[in-house]
């Protein structure tokens, strides 16, 4: 019955069924309730809301209490981002180099975040604290990265498929260094 109703809402019911179904809808109270619910779902899916619904949602949100306490991150995630512990004590810089040329210099992602709250640990763009960001040194210099990459690539499984093509990565590094 409900499937037929759903088909009716979507305008997919054949005319023979249509007559009978509309008749039932007129008499069956429960079915009428489902009818309006289905339309509501359809409207929501299509993003059509009447102004009165939006007003009601906004009013409800206004009445909701504001949660000030930070959400405790699940234990497992904490171990992923165990750097949070260090962030409270030492200056931890998450430095992201962007391309072209790659090593044009450190670009500090985001803005300094008050550290210590477990909630902030889940954010990858944690940049802390202590040292002024303008003077933040990259955690690994381009020359060091190059050494690491040259040592790493022979064991890369992707090299097993791509031959020495991934070495092109280290080439990209050096060009950036030279352009610095």
């Amino acid at each position: 019955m409900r499937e037929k109703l759903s088909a009716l809402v979507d305008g997919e019911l054949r005319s023979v069924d249509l007559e009978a179904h509309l008749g039932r809808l007129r008499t069956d109270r429960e079915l009428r309730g489902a009818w309006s619910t289905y339309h509501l779902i359809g409207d929501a899916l299509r993003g059509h809301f009447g102004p009165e619904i939006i007003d009601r949602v906004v009013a409800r949100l206004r009445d909701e209490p504001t949660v000030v306490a930070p959400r405790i991150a699940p234990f497992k995630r904490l171990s992923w981002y165990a750097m949070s512990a260090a962030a409270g004590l030492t200056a931890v810089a998450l430095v992201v180099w962007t391309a072209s040329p790659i090593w044009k210099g450190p670009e500090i992602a985001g803005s300094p975040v008050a550290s210590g709250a477990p909630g902030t640990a889940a954010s990858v763009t944690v940049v802390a604290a202590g040292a002024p960001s303008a003077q933040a040194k990259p955690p690994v210099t381009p020359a060091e990265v190059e050494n690491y990459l040259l040592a790493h690539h022979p064991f890369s499984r992707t090299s097993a498929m791509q031959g020495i093509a991934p070495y092109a990565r280290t080439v990209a590094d050096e060009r950036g260094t030279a352009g610095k």
Partner: protein
Amino acid sequence: MTRLLASRFLRPFRVLPFLLPVSAALAQTDVSAQQWLERIYAATQKLSYTGVFVYQQGQQVETSRITHIVEASGPRERLETLDGTPREIIRTRDQVVCYLPASMTVKIDKPSGTRMFPAILPERLKELSENYNIRKGEVERVGGYDCQVIILEPRDRMRYGHRLWADLNTGMLLKARTFDEKNEMLEQFAFTQLQIGGAIGREQLKARFSRASRDWRVEDSGAVRTNLAEAGWTIRSSPPGFRTVTELLRTLGGTSGVGHIVLSDGIAAVSVFIQPAKSKQPASQPGLVRQGAINVYTRPVGDHWITVVGEAPPESVKYIADAVEYRK
């Protein structure tokens, strides 16, 4: 006795729930897609080819020429950069030689007991499907070749996704893309011109630079297999699917006695470097550096620095770096 027996009989039921997700995962994997991966690996081992490819990361594009010839003594490869700083890399079965003319340095990596062309083991391929959903895509054209698209979707956030384009006839990999968790492209390797088989002159393998010249500074990694656990270094736990592949002791950037552990999930490799603090630049800070699909995370442990480098997400390299322990 009864309890012992009972626990022995019950054990399979306790194990079962852990097995289920794996078998469900295997069921989702397209077997023919997995066979394609085997073909790609086999092609790398047996095909001779020469061509030009581009490496692209963000806005940056670098062009290189690669020649790969399979001889009786094994494969031999030469890579030469065509843009920017000239560079040359020559790889044979047991060593990699990098010529860096900008700094007049030759780097030689010749790990004893480790093959430079890691053969992919069939059992590792099976493991792959526990970490990735592997399926076939469309047939698309790359560099004039009709290619089968193979898609590797990561099953968790500890690894990146891959899209591979392999030649229908030979299995040769013509294009490879790496994606992050938002499905945004991190980097791409793609051939723009390629000759598979046929006459490839051996002179194309010859190094343009000669390290016999006295002007070159030669850095030999002197890598030897070792057991770092005996020295007190262990990785407490690694992300799901990552296993230790090899442990070495090597010279890195002029510092000898650097520990090097390689982990892999079957496709992504991650290297852990353990080096004395005095060999790092002063005022080093813990932190993350990103370049394309490569993430580098470094942190101090005692009077050593741990640096994890790999084609894996920041979460993954951090997880591994944080799991490195020293216990004596």
